[in-house]
């Protein structure tokens, strides 16, 4: 009787940790996807190796934190600001720097964007210091949300639902609108798209801005999970690149699957096997890329 009870108790504990890992993993995966999807599309569209994508996410996080604590802006407006300001800044960068290296060799794009990472790390440190920025959530997003007899942190529930709605909008935009059709055409065959009168330069500038804005939004949404600090673009780069390369360049679905996989695996590893750190993620990435060099859903080259 006693043993049975212990077993039931043990199973219950295991089940609730399983649910908790899945829940937090999905939340983290959603954030990773919202941040990385822009990178997948721009790399697939223009073949531009943009290692500085994490800079946009970090910038979004800083915008949110500053808007909440300094400007006393309500939370939803702060999120909107993170999207808009980062998107605008990215257009400036795109026109000034990125556009000069379209069609350049990969090494030069890599170097330019590493340079941008170094500069942004320095600027972030100069303005905000090296400490990680605390996020002050509004009252209605604090506390717990109970469902089926379990409690979930309300903010994570909001995060999952909100990200899901962004993703749905994005997918609708790409699959059902004329802009999306043009983007898909340009990803498939840029020269052909251009020759039938699609202005791929402008298309790219807009897509780049939307993608960067989404990264900013993702960084802002995830500021509570992935700490906003100056080393962010360095430390998170591996994760964003894993999402894109495992998911496959230029695809929307691939990075989504990859981001969820990474989110859940990473959370599970940190929960059950913290002594191994991110070890399994890297091993799995290397294995996956050996098995499918162009990612899960990438175009075969």
């Amino acid at each position, binding site marked *: 009787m006693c043993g049975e009870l212990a077993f039931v108790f043990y199973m219950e504990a295991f089940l609730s940790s399983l649910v908790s890992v899945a829940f937090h993993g999905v939340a983290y995966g959603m954030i990773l996807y919202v941040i990385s999807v822009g990178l997948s599309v721009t790399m697939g569209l223009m073949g531009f190796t943009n290692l500085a994508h994490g800079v946009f996410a970090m910038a979004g996080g800083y915008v949110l934190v500053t808007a909440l604590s300094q400007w006393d802006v309500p939370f939803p407006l702060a999120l909107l600001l993170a999207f808009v300001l980062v998107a605008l800044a990215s257009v400036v960068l795109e026109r000034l720097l990125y556009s000069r290296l379209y069609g350049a060799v990969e090494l030069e794009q890599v*170097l*330019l964007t*590493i*340079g941008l990472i170094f500069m942004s790390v320095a*600027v972030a440190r100069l303005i905000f210091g090296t400490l990680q920025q605390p996020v002050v959530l509004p009252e209605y997003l604090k506390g717990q949300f109970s469902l089926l007899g379990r409690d979930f942190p309300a903010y994570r529930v909001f995060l999952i639902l909100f990200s899901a709605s962004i993703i749905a909008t994005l997918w609708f935009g790409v699959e059902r609108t004329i802009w999306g059709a043009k983007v898909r055409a340009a990803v498939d065959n840029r020269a052909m798209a251009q020759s039938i009168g699609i202005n791929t330069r402008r298309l790219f500038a807009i897509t780049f801005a939307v993608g960067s804005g989404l990264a900013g939004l993702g960084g802002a949404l995830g500021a509570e999970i992935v700490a906003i600090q100056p080393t962010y673009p*360095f430390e998170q780069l*591996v994760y964003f690149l894993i999402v894109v390369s495992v998911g496959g360049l230029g695809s929307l679905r691939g990075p989504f699957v990859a981001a969820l996989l990474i989110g859940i695996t990473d959370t599970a590893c940190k929960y059950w096997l913290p002594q191994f750190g*991110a070890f399994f993620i890297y091993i799995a990435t*290397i294995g996956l890329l050996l098995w499918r060099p162009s990612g899960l859903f990438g175009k075969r080259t």
Partner: protein
Amino acid sequence: MSEHVGYNANPRLRWTESLPWLVAGLAFFLLPEYLSLGARILTFILFALSLDLIIGYAGIITLGHAAFFGLGAYVTGIMSAKLGFHDPIVQLLTSGVVAGLLGLATGAIILRMHGLTQLMLTLAIAALCLEVANKATPITGGADGLSGVVIAPIFGLFAFDMFGKTAYLWCLFLLFIAWWLVRRLIYAPFGVSLTGIRENSLRMHAIGAPVDARLRKVYTLSAVMAGMAGALLTQTNQFVGLNVLGFEPSGELLVMLILGGVGRLYGAFVGPLVFLVAQDFLAKKFPEYWYFGIGLMLVLVVLFARGGILGLIDGWVARFKGKTT
């Protein structure tokens, strides 16, 4: 990229090629208080030289070259602090061999890929090494680093002194050997075929060059050199920390090489010299501005001076000659 090096180029030594050694020799006598910085610069020149072989000549882009450097540094550190092997030559050779084995194994994986996948794999392997070093605390010391490194006298004769004289000369001696080997290599048909692979690997396949085997060879060789540079760093510092691994040291090394000039052999000499001297003077006083500065420099070099410092000097020399004749 560079017309100076290639099968048609004259492989005879030019007088300018003695300059690095003259400078290094003069520095030993004139700047005794900067010898430890000097040893560091020489170590990073060796490291940059190994990167130049694969980026500048073979055209393989890597974001994870610090994996080999860090592995070499840790092998020497662990041999000395944990296993009791204090002989610097044994340490150096072992570090080289172990790093070379990692190069051989990872090269087989990486060199089959292209573009983003290749970049990602180099980064993932370096991140993996960092994670192992960080978590295997009993062996590597984890985040605290590995201290208690003791180095026996070289050949049993020259002990490492506190002024860094022995360390400096030891680094200089090894760099000289490496330079001589690399210089021989890039003027040989092997080096020329690497340049060919960089410029057009399809054509190299078409003319029957063993492209994959060549790339694997040069990648392994480069890993050996980087591992030895790591061993040198441990021997001169008598300490190993996590900062020898990961993306940041790989990125900084790229900056040094780009600053000097890629694919020009001596770019690997000029870059670390300028970078590390500037870092020594600026980084401690103004860390934020220093980081901003290297980022800005990288952007400017990519946009306006693709040959780095040596490229600029070549340009000026060519202009000067063009005007006078």
